[in-house]
């Protein structure tokens, strides 16, 4: 009946009744709510689709009415016009256009799908079910958006789960953690005993001037207690450092491994910088949390309990009085700290914006100078600098104001201790030693309290870092083998694309219903204008992405069902922009097969016409290629990547030809190398060279994502269609190049 999960809004009862009445007996294929009314204001209207008509219902002024109704069989075109921030669903019927409804971007996906279904119904009478695999944007439990790119809603996933997960990493160090805890208790006890010892010293020895022999041992005891505390703390920190850092090392390792396993589309959707931050600084934050904050927080909790008890024991009457100043201090800190943190955040923000501006200008200094824009850049810098200065001043001023106020509130407490304590002393209920001890404990009391009030922020901050890490660890490894994956170590190399539709952005498919077959050992050329979908075909074949609709088959098996390791072994690529790792030439050639023997490497290099230039370098095959192969020229890099592919020896070769940017000599060498590479493999080449095309068994021409023409070179030239035109342009271009050279 109604599509479930597609509508976020629930269909109101009155509308449901209205529709049931008016369209009695008709099956409702689709019902979607929009969030924008016809005039452009926010509001709700409902789109309904039966097999015979499409109509829009709205509930205005308590009257339900049909806004517009169009019979399906009169519809010649239905589309979701995506504009800025929103769009409109329009159909064309009997030559006239009709705007059915408006929507904001939030509903763009829904209505694009709706348009497709309407088109299907109008043209074919049937429709395809919507792709149910759409990533869940909203949590089904609480209805709020899922922040990360996982399917897990962090609200509904209880906070303490992250906590316990972090502790999973600490598990192997259980005994050490226990010992830390015990040491902490001992250290705290030692610390707490110090004021008490001074109380004894004052009350039982110094004031009454009695038992002088006790001075020395008591003083030593004071020293001892302090020393013990310091010593135990040091030991604790040592162990904590070991535990914390080891746990973080484990987290970092797991994280990095996971990042390697993630799909390309995961990387597409995110800043590489953000992912690097995850590995570097988020793990650092978690480390801080485990090593520094957590022990401190525990210790603070212990201290507070301990001191609280002691204060009460020393003088419950005084404790009752002291609650007020302590309360005021704590309240002040709780209210003020969050605000300060905001100023800090803004400070860091402005600072990074400033350095981004500087970075920008200095990196692009050539352009700045070429266009004579130094003054403009100077102004831009000054603005940002001024902004930063103002924010810094504000921050420090706020600090300068809050700190004294804080100190005064604390002093207030001290005053109460001495005044009330003094009065109690006069009444015989407290001793001097007691007052001094009390003072001492109170001084020790504040720091842990401040720490604990900050606790929520620290926890949130660190757990957020932890969550970001787990977000990556939880991300679906799209590169995992399906449970029923087939092992195919020896492929023949038959490839088939069957009704493949795909788009990096689901709303704009780059490939539309593309179908073609390639037999093993054939070489195919793919041509088309830029953006027609050529590189996408290749990415899909490498299984860097999965198709939205249709299938890709290798040797008759769906590519999704083939084990990754076999796919990777049997598919090799040579890219336009050859990517080399910073290592030696030999290491790069042997990248796919680290156990490759030296003669294999040399053989591959020879076949790639690379051997000679490699030997012309002083370090030969051990030459370091630099970051991204930057120390080699483009022609050299290309040949190394060809050698790499030769060594890999895949059954299926994917070739993304570079538009020639090398001299004709090198061009010839590369061409020869490629010819050797192609022999005996199923080759798919995004062709730019006329020679490649002439040598291809079959050529596929893509136009705006659709398969436009397919056939041999001669057949397509004879057709005088798109291919013919492209070749004309290419030959003209080549001719003009020759003249220039």
């Amino acid at each position: 009946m109604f599509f479930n999960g597609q509508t976020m809004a629930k269909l109101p009862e009155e509308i449901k009744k209205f529709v049931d009445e008016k369209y009695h007996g008709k099956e409702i294929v689709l019902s979607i709510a929009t969030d924008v009314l016809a005039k452009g204001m926010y509001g709700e209207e409902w789109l309904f689709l039966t097999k015979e008509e499409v109509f829009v219902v709205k509930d205005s002024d308590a009257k339900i009415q049909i806004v517009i109704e169009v019979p399906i069989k009169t519809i010649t075109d239905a589309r979701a016009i995506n504009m800025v921030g929103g769009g409109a669903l329009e159909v064309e019927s009997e030559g006239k256009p009709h705007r059915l409804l408006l929507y904001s971007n939030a509903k763009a996906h829904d209505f694009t799908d709706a348009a497709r279904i309407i088109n299907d119904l109008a043209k074919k009478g049937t429709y395809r079910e919507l792709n149910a695999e759409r990533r869940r944007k909203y949590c089904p439990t609480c209805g709020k958006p899922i922040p990360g790119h996982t399917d897990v809603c962090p609200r509904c996933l209880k906070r303490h789960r992250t906590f316990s997960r972090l502790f999973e990493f600490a598990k192997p160090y259980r005994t050490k953690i226990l010992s830390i805890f015990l040491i902490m208790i001992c250290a705290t006890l030692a610390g707490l005993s110090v004021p008490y010892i001074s109380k004894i010293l004052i009350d039982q020895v110094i004031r009454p001037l009695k038992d002088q022999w006790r001075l020395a041992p008591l003083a030593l005891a004071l020293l001892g207690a302090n020393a013990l505390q310091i010593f135990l703390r040091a030991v604790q920190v040592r162990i904590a450092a070991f535990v914390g850092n080891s746990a973080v090392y484990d987290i970092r390792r797991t994280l990095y491994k996971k990042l390697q396993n993630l799909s390309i589309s995961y990387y597409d959707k995110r800043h590489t910088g953000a992912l690097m931050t995850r590995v570097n600084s988020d793990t650092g934050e978690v480390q801080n949390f485990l090593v520094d904050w957590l022990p401190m927080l525990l210790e603070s909790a212990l201290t507070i309990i301990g001191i609280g008890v002691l204060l009460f024991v020393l003088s419950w009457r005084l404790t009752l009085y002291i609650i007020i100043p302590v309360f005021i201090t704590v309240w002040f800190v709780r209210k003020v700290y969050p605000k300060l943190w905001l100023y800090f955040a803004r400070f860091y923000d402005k600072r990074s914006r400033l350095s981004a501006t500087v970075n920008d200008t200095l990196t692009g200094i050539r352009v700045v100078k070429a266009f004579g824009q130094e003054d403009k850049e100077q102004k831009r810098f000054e603005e940002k600098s001024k902004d930063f200065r103002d924010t810094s001043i504000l921050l420090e001023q706020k600090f300068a104001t809050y700190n004294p106020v804080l100190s005064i509130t604390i002093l207030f407490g001290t005053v109460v201790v001495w005044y009330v304590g003094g009065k109690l002393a006069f009444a015989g209920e407290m001793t001097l030693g007691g007052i001094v001890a009390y003072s001492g404990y109170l001084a020790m009391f504040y720091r842990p309290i401040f720490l604990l009030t900050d606790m929520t922020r620290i926890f949130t901050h660190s757990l957020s870092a932890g969550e970001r890490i787990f977000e990556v660890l939880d991300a679906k490894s799209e590169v995992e083998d399906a449970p029923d994956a087939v092992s195919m170590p020896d492929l023949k190399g038959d490839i088939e694309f069957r009704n493949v539709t795909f788009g990096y952005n689901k709303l704009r498919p780059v490939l539309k219903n593309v179908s073609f077959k390639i037999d093993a050992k054939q070489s195919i050329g793919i041509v088309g204008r830029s953006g027609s979908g050529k590189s996408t075909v290749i990415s899909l074949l490498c299984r860097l992405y999965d198709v939205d609709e249709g299938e890709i088959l290798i040797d008759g098996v769906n590519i999704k069902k083939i084990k990754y390791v076999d796919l990777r072994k049997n598919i090799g690529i040579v890219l336009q922009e050859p990517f080399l790792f910073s290592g030696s030439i030999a290491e790069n050639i042997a990248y796919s097969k680290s156990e490759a023997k030296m003669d294999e490497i040399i053989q591959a290099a020879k076949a790639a016409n690379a051997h000679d230039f490699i030997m012309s370098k002083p370090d030969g095959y051990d030459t370091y290629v630099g970051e991204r192969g930057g120390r080699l020229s483009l022609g050299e890099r290309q040949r190394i990547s060809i050698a790499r592919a030769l060594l890999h020896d895949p059954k299926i070769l994917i070739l993304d030809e570079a538009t020639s940017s090398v001299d004709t000599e090198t061009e010839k060498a590369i061409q020869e190398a490629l010819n050797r590479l192609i022999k005996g493999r199923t080759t798919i080449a995004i062709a730019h060279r006329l020679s490649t095309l002439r040598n291809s068994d079959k050529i596929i021409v893509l136009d705006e994502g659709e398969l436009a023409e397919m056939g041999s070179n001669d057949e397509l030239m004879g057709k005088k269609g798109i291919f013919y035109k492209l070749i004309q342009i290419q030959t003209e271009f080549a001719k003009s190049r020759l003249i220039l050279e």
Partner: protein
Amino acid sequence: MRKKEKNGESFIILEPEKIKFEMGGSGVLRMISEGKTYQRVYPLSVFPITNPDNFISIRDVEEDEIGLIKNLKDLAHDQQNLIRSQLRISYFVPTIKEIFKIKEEFGIYVWHVKTNRGQRTFYVKGRNENLILRGNSRLLITDIEECRYEIEDFNKLPRRSLMELDKVL
């Protein structure tokens, strides 16, 4: 839909006297130019943020540009209104008039606001990655659904709104 690049040397200017816009059936704009009727036209501002009234691109349903209107103000009033009301729909960017509350949860900020198109609650990822400052006090906000909102001049917002905005600026 991919825009086909028409190879031409320059763009086509639509002369105000030579064109006429009409509201077609059910809300779709229609243009008559030099005897030819374009059933479905969609106007877009070439400089939507800095200069929305100058250079309006008139496009057809396949996103091909039919021509440009140099200045909206050169058209007759009723014509201007037609285009403006259509632009208002093409650019669904509500203006925030008041911010009731901004709350943070797991790195997502929940905004409860009142706009010139009604009340709205939306979610923004991060504190200010999705906030763009244009000029001195104009703010453009993109939410998690890629819906956009704008604050024309945050200095003119009511005080409570400013206090909320402070949490993220």
